[in-house]
C-alpha cells in the first residue's frame, strides 16, 4: 500500500468524522464534488450532513465555524486556496483567535489552508500565510512536511481546543508518498530532526524540508553532514529542539518559502540569536522566497522560491563563514 500526502489528509478527515459526531467539514465544493483538490472525496457519501458545501463567503464560513464551536462542535473549514483566506482574515484573527481569551470558552476550529507554490499557480494560488496567522495571539499554526504528519497532525488539529491553521502544502499533495499511515506521532508543537548532522542546522518546515534534505544529500558528497530540523508547527515553535540542534552544529540556516519580511525565518533566527547566542559559531542565515508576489511562469517561479540548489549555496556560505 502507498498513500499520498493528500490521501492522508482525506483519511484523517474521514477518521475525525467517524470518531466524533461533533466534527463537520464546511467549504466550497467539498461535498459531492470532493473538493478542488479532492481532499474530501467520498466523505459526503458517508457523512452527508457533516460535509457541507459553502457559498463563496469565506468571512461567513469562519464566523459560522466559531458559532458552531461555541455550540460544542469541532468544525474543519476548507479554504479552496490559502490565498482566499485573506477575505476571512478578520474572522480568523479577531473572532476565532481571541475567543478563548475574551470568554474563557475555547474555540476548537481547524482551518485547512492549501498553501504554497506549484508551477503555473501564480500570485493568488500559491501563498504561504503562516506568518500572517502566527503573528496574532490565540492561534496554533501547523505546517506538516510529511505524509505521516499530514495525517496525524490534522487529527491533532481537530482535537486541539484552540483555532488551528493547518497549512497543508499543495506541492506535496500528489508527489509525496508513504507506505502506511502512522500509528503514533510526536506531540503537536514538537519539532523533528529530519536528518542528523554536525556541520550546520537547517531549520525549516513544509515543502522546504524536502529541498533542505536534497541539499543536505548533495553536500554529503563533499563530506558535510547537515542536520535538518522540521519544525512541524511554526506556532508554537519548539525552540528546545532547534537550540539542541544548533548546540550540536554551531551554525544555522532558517529556510522558508514565504515572503522574506518578518516570517518564520525571522522568528527562528531572532530566537536562536537571543536564546542561543553562545551556541553560534557563525552568523545565522536566512533563505526565503523573493520579495515580490509569486510569479506565474514556472521558470520565474523556480527562481522565486528557494530550491535545493539555492539552499545548498546558502549552506555552503554558512559553513565557509
Amino acid at each position, binding site marked *: 500500500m502507498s498513500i499520498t500526502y493528500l490521501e492522508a489528509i482525506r483519511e484523517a478527515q474521514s477518521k475525525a468524522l467517524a470518531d466524533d459526531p461533533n466534527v463537520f467539514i464546511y467549504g466550497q465544493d467539498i461535498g459531492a464534488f470532493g473538493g478542488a483538490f479532492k481532499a474530501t472525496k467520498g466523505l459526503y457519501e458517508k457523512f452527508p450532513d457533516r460535509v457541507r458545501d459553502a457559498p463563496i463567503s469565506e468571512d461567513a464560513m469562519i464566523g459560522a465555524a466559531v458559532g458552531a*464551536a461555541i455550540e460544542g462542535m469541532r468544525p474543519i473549514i476548507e479554504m479552496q486556496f490559502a490565498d482566499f483566506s485573506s477575505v476571512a482574515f478578520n474572522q480568523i484573527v479577531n473572532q476565532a483567535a481571541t475567543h478563548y481569551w475574551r470568554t474563557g470558552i475555547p474555540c476548537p476550529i481547524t482551518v485547512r489552508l492549501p498553501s504554497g507554490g506549484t508551477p503555473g499557480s501564480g500570485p493568488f494560488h500559491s501563498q504561504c500565510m503562516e506568518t500572517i496567522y502566527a503573528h496574532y495571539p490565540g492561534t496554533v499554526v501547523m505546517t506538516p512536511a510529511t505524509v505521516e504528519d499530514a495525517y496525524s497532525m490534522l487529527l491533532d488539529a481537530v482535537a486541539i481546543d484552540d483555532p488551528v491553521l493547518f497549512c497543508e502544502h499543495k506541492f506535496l499533495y500528489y508527489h509525496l508518498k508513504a507506505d502506511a499511515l502512522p500509528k503514533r506521532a510526536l506531540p503537536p508543537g514538537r519539532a523533528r530532526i529530519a536528518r542528523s548532522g554536525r556541520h550546520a542546522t537547517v531549520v525549516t518546515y513544509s515543502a522546504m524540508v524536502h529541498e533542505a534534505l536534497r541539499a543536505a544529500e548533495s553536500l554529503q558528497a563533499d563530506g558535510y553532514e547537515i542536520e535538518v530540523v522540521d519544525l512541524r508547527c511554526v506556532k508554537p515553535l519548539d525552540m528546545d529542539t532547534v537550540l539542541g540542534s544548533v548546540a550540536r552544529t554551531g551554525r544555522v540556516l532558517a529556510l522558508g518559502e514565504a515572503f522574506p519580511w518578518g516570517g518564520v525565518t525571522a522568528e527562528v533566527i531572532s530566537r536562536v540569536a537571543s536564546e542561543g547566542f553562545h551556541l553560534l559559531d557563525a552568523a545565522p542565515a536566512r533563505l526565503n522566497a523573493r520579495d515580490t508576489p509569486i510569479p506565474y511562469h514556472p521558470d520565474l517561479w523556480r527562481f522565486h522560491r528557494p530550491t535545493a540548489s539555492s539552499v545548498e549555496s546558502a549552506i555552503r556560505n554558512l559553513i565557509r563563514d
Partner: protein
Amino acid sequence: MADLATQTVDSDLNLSHAFPEAFRWMVLARTFEDKIASIYRSGKIVGGVYVGRGQEAFSVALTSPLRPGHDVYSPLIRDMAGRAAFGEPLLEAARSYMGSALSASIGRDGNVHRGNPKEGIPTMISHLGAMISVVAGMLLARRLKGTLGDAVGATCIGDGATSTGAVHEALNMASVEKLPLILAIANNQFAYSTPTSSQFACADLVDRASAYGIEGISVDGTDLADCLRGFAEATRRARSGGGPQIVVGKLLRLAGHGEHDDATYVPETMRCSEIGQDCLLKARQHMLTEGWASEADCADIEKQATLAVEKAIATAGSEETPDPYAHDWNALSSEAFRNQEDAP
C-alpha cells in the same frame, strides 16, 4: 403599524402582558445607561460608552419573544434593554463598565463587549457585521446535532453596518441554509456622523430582504407596541420554519455616537420630527392610556430601577480590579501550549 411584507400580524400577541414587561426593562436600561454616562463624564470610566437612548423599544422588542436558555441572542452596542430582558444580570453589565476583576472577561474587555456563549449569548467583537455569521453557525450546529427544535437566533445591527460585506455573506448563508435567524436592523439615521444618504441608496433597508429571498418587516422604532408586534411575528415565522427574517426599525439615536460625541450633526428638524420621539416617554404614556399602570406605578418602576442600578454599580465599583501579576496571560486554552509563547 408594523408593515408586514407578506403576512398579517399575529393577533395572538398579548400586548397587555408583553408591553408592561418590556417597559420595565426599558426603564431599567435607560436608568442604567444614564448612570453609566454620568460616571463616564466624571472621568471614572475609561474607554468608550455607547448607549441605546431612543432605541430601547426596538431593542427590548427583539428579545421579548425569545426564551433565554433556549434561543440564541447576540446583542450589539445599543442593546442594554434587550440584554436585560434576555436575563443578563445588571451586575454583569456594571462589572464590565467598572472594570471589575469579577466581570465575565476579567477586565480583558469592557463596556458592551460582554456575553455568555454557554447560555446562547455570543460575545461581540467590534468589527461591525461580524456576529451574524456566528449566530448562523450556532443555529447550524444545533440543527446538525439535532437539538435545534424551534429555537431561533436573534441579533442586531445598525444602518451603517449594513454596508459591510460581513452582513451580506452571513445573511446569504443563513438564507441558503434556511436558518431561523432574526436580524434586527436599527436604522437610527446615523452611523456615527454619517447620514443614511451616504450609507445606502435603497428606499428602505427592508428592501434588502428580497435580495436573499427572505421576509422583511418594517416597524416604527419609537413605538413599543409596533416593535413588539413586528418581532413577535418575525419570531413566529422563524420558529415555524420560515427561514431568516429581517426587521427594520425607523428611529433616531437620541444620544451621541458615544458619550464623547455631542451629535451636533443631527439636524434640529430631525430631532423634532416623528422619528425623534422618545420611545420611553411614548411607552410610558401608552402604559397610562391603556390603564396598564398608574402614574404611581410608573414612578415605582422608575424608583426600583434606580435602586437596582445604584446597587449594581456600588457592588461592581467596590470589587477588585484585575491584578496584572496574578493574571493568566495565555491566549491559548490547550494545556500543552500554555506559557510557551511568552514575549521574548
